[in-house]
């Protein structure tokens, strides 16, 4: 009885009940799409998160907690507790082994986007996603006092073009009552999308920050003419934080200790990679919860299959008796139901994977272009094949339940089905 064509019979039997079968397959397909989608976004989010900053050996700011410093200096979330003096910055910048530094001054905003006071070294040294450098989609770096360079999201969401003039507001809220509207900035550069907080930043020079706050931090800016301003020394007294690049990364730990024990003012230096994984430890809980929810949705899909098969079992006792009369062994009945369960899951899993990758192929270029987020491969890989295998296998195992019931029935019924 090796020739018993179980798989083809299972398939015909499913096709005969195609209404329910399609619905169960659809359930599994949707569950699978959800799961894979969550997985993709999860890995994509994690990757772009970890790719936010690289190439920087230390981030230095006033003493608080490492995660806090990382959040305000790089992710522009929350505010600094304290500033650091320009002298201290100069001291660290001149320390042996320091290759470059990039100052950062925060506190203003434009239409809800953070204004970052810095200089052109930012565009030169900031690295993300491995060794990728910031690139200009249009225009050039900062030059004149009231020049500004804006990130890709700022340009896209506000519809800004080169040479447009914008006004910077004091504070970081979306609605601000104090605007430095005496001193509009001119957009001279627009950056390419990076998928990092850079996209949501408005870059101006440190001198410009100094100038607009010259007549008190909450004023409308300065009324001095450009010529008068240019004649002045606008170098800042304070900055919020700065990035440090070293000649050899091995020196990072030593310099970090030196900065952390600096006597003149309370400072803190963090290694970006370490702080990022600390931060991910916090954010990652949400990520893992999402994955667990998605996994449960897949399990629910499989339970749908189980329910559908169990429900059909009674009306199919006759079918089993006929198969037995034709020479099928109880074991064939068992295999029939297990393969039915597995086939339904397989079909659902394949369709779900297909849907996911179709959506990815369509959506990935848009995501990449607009948000700089990479969702990884747009072709199914080993992981997906393994997942299809696992889902099919799990469904086959669940199929043991109806299979066992049918097996028992077919032994007990004999030739007579009394329905």
């Amino acid at each position, binding site marked *: 009885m090796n020739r018993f064509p179980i798989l083809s019979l299972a398939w015909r039997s499913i096709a005969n009940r195609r209404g329910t079968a399609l619905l169960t397959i659809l359930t599994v397909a949707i569950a699978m799409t959800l799961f894979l989608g969550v997985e993709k976004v999860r890995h994509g989010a994690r990757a772009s998160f970890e790719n936010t900053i690289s190439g920087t050996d230390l981030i230095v700011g006033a003493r608080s907690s490492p995660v806090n410093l990382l959040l305000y200096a790089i992710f522009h979330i929350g505010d600094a507790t304290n500033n650091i003096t320009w002298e201290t910055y100069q001291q660290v910048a001149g320390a042996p082994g320091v290759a470059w530094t990039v100052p950062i001054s925060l506190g203003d905003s434009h239409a809800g986007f953070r204004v970052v006071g810095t200089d052109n070294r930012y565009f030169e040294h900031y690295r993300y996603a491995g060794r990728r450098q910031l690139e200009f989609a249009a225009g050039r770096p900062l030059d004149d006092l009231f020049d500004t360079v804006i990130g890709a999201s700022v340009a896209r969401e506000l519809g800004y073009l080169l040479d447009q003039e914008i006004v910077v507001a004091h504070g970081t809220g979306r609605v601000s009552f104090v605007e430095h509207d005496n001193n509009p900035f001119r957009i001279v550069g627009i950056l390419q999308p990076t998928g990092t907080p850079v996209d949501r930043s408005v870059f101006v020079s440190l001198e410009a920050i100094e100038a607009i706050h010259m007549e008190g931090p909450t004023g409308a800016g300065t009324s001095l003419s450009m010529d008068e301003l240019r004649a002045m020394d606008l170098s800042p007294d304070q900055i919020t934080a700065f990035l440090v690049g070293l000649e050899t990364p091995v020196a990072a730990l030593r310099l970090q200790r030196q900065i952390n024990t600096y006597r003149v003012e309370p400072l803190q230096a963090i290694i970006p990679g370490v702080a990022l994984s600390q931060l991910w430890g916090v954010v990652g809980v949400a990520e893992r919860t999402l994955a667990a929810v998605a996994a449960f949705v897949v399990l629910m899909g499989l339970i749908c299959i189980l329910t559908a098969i169990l429900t059909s079992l009674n009306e199919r006792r006759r079918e089993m008796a006929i198969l037995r009369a034709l020479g099928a062994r109880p074991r064939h009945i068992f295999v029939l139901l297990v393969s039915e369960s597995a086939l339904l899951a397989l079909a659902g899993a394949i369709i779900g994977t297909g849907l996911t990758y179709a959506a990815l192929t369509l959506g990935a270029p848009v995501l990449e272009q607009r948000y700089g987020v990479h969702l990884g491969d747009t072709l199914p890989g080993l992981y997906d094949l393994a997942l299809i295998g696992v889902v099919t296998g799990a469904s086959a195992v669940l199929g043991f339940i109806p299979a066992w019931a049918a097996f028992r029935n077919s032994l007990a019924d004999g*030739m007579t089905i009394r329905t």
Partner: protein
Amino acid sequence: MSAEPAIYLDGVRFSYARKGPVVLDMDRFEVAAGEKVFLKGASGSGKSTLLGLIAGIMAPTAGRIDVLGRPMSKLSGGRRDSLRAERLGVIFQMFNLLPYLPAGANVMLPARFSPRRNEACKVAGGAEAEARRLMSRLQLDPKQYWSSPPTELSVGQQQRVAAARALIGRPGLVLADEPTSALDADARDAFLSLLIEECAASGAALLFVSHDGSLASKFDRAVDLSELNAARVGT
């Protein structure tokens, strides 16, 4: 055809549950090769149970059953299933067909399950040719009905498809469990004649059970189960 009896029963007892009532208790019963036997019995007298034992779907609690010269009751479950697949044809009272296969595919099933029966179809030009031949012999035009789903066939037509399926690949024995009880008088007579004719043509023995004694005249021999079965359950 072998000269060995199609069915030989000796001292068979059977009960469904280990401590349950004895449903069958038969001393001796025999059907010769190619013989057509009518077995009469009231409802619940154990006719289906007897057929299940002969078909090897169940094994007797005690006693011996030989089928076509093979010791059916002594074989393992798997071998009983093989013997049934290769040498027996079974027709139920109704709902004989797998609902998801068209008539023709239903007829061909035994040839797909059993190499031996597939082989036996070779003389007729293969399983499909043999299935078509049997269908037309049973007055179901294969041109018209080959692809019909069972739901589109009348009960009489379904029973004829079931008969064709039981007969494909030259089985030595056909077991029929009240196959005419759902048919009206005309269809019943027509079906019975065709079944007996085709069993004769293929040399198969036929054990036909029914509670309707009026059918007995067409058979070689008629027996009453109540005279054979010492157990008195359900009667």
